[in-house]
């Protein structure tokens, strides 16, 4: 009997109860962030530095989850001194931007990028804001980029976005 990711199973919503099934049924969207700005890059923030090459997603609302399957960071700094690497944090706050927590920290130079895919998704439940903030910019900032593969699920409606 086929299992539909869009309808509730006998034990509840598929996405809510079995987030791993997103691997089987979903495909990821990609968010491409330029992290050169000191204020960081908005992701699901609605406000903040946005760069110019991507849209900003709305703040996660109650019932929504952001499921991150991959996180990559690349930079052009040569890393020849301690101050010349780029370091970025995936920060999650509550809906009004307070009480920030670093969920993941990545670092990169031109000789060592950071590229991670996750066997299970990093799940961030709304309401909340998500952004990538630089902890250290490095000396060449024109090629500081973070790429995130994600699926947003509205669990209250069992729909993906």
């Amino acid at each position, binding site marked *: 009997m086929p299992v539909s990711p869009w309808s509730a199973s006998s034990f509840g919503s598929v996405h809510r109860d079995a987030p791993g099934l997103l691997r089987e049924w979903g495909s990821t969207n990609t968010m491409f962030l330029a992290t050169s700005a000191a204020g960081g890059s908005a992701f699901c923030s609605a406000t903040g530095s946005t760069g110019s090459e991507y849209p900003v997603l709305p703040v996660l609302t109650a019932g929504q989850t952001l499921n991150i399957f991959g996180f990559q960071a690349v930079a052009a700094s040569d*890393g020849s001194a301690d*101050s010349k690497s780029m370091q970025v944090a995936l920060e999650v706050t509550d809906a009004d931007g307070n009480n920030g927590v670093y969920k993941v920290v990545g670092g990169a130079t031109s000789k060592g990028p950071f590229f991670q895919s996750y066997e299970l998704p990093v799940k961030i439940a709304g309401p909340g804001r998500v952004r990538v903030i630089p902890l250290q910019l490095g000396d060449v900032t024109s090629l500081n980029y973070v790429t995130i593969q994600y699926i947003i699920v509205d669990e209250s409606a069992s729909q993906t976005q």
Partner: protein
Amino acid sequence: MGTFIHAILAQNLLYNSTMAPKVSPWNPPRHGFPRKDAPAFQREWQAFDPSAVALNGATVQALIESPSSTLTNASGTIYVWGFSFVTPSTAARGGILKDDDGNPIGAAVGTSQGPYFLTLSTPIKLPQNSSLTYTKVGAHTAGSYVTPYYIVTTESSEEGYN
């Protein structure tokens, strides 16, 4: 002859009772609990909720607290699915991840030129109620972080689907 056959049968019974796996990976137990008996099933039922830990200078730092200390009247098990280590230092920095008994489960070493990152397809299971710590080797530069990717199952979730 009969005694001999009985001896062989008894030996086989002893062998089977001591060597047979408690849970067969090929025959899911009819009354088992997949997240407890088959940890890889966490891939279907769980998600990560990681938190990056800044390495602040202490030789030993807690990365994940014991489930029994963070939950009231509960015990549980930590499953480590991976970890990453980043540092802005041009010199190599690193350390060892250990359980409560001091048993190492892995080491991470990196520089600004090459961070360390790993996720596993099958988790590392810590002893019940054990925490996860990081023991640094040598000095660390400010801005060094470890991010563990893990699942904590508690008794209630190990026994059912909550």
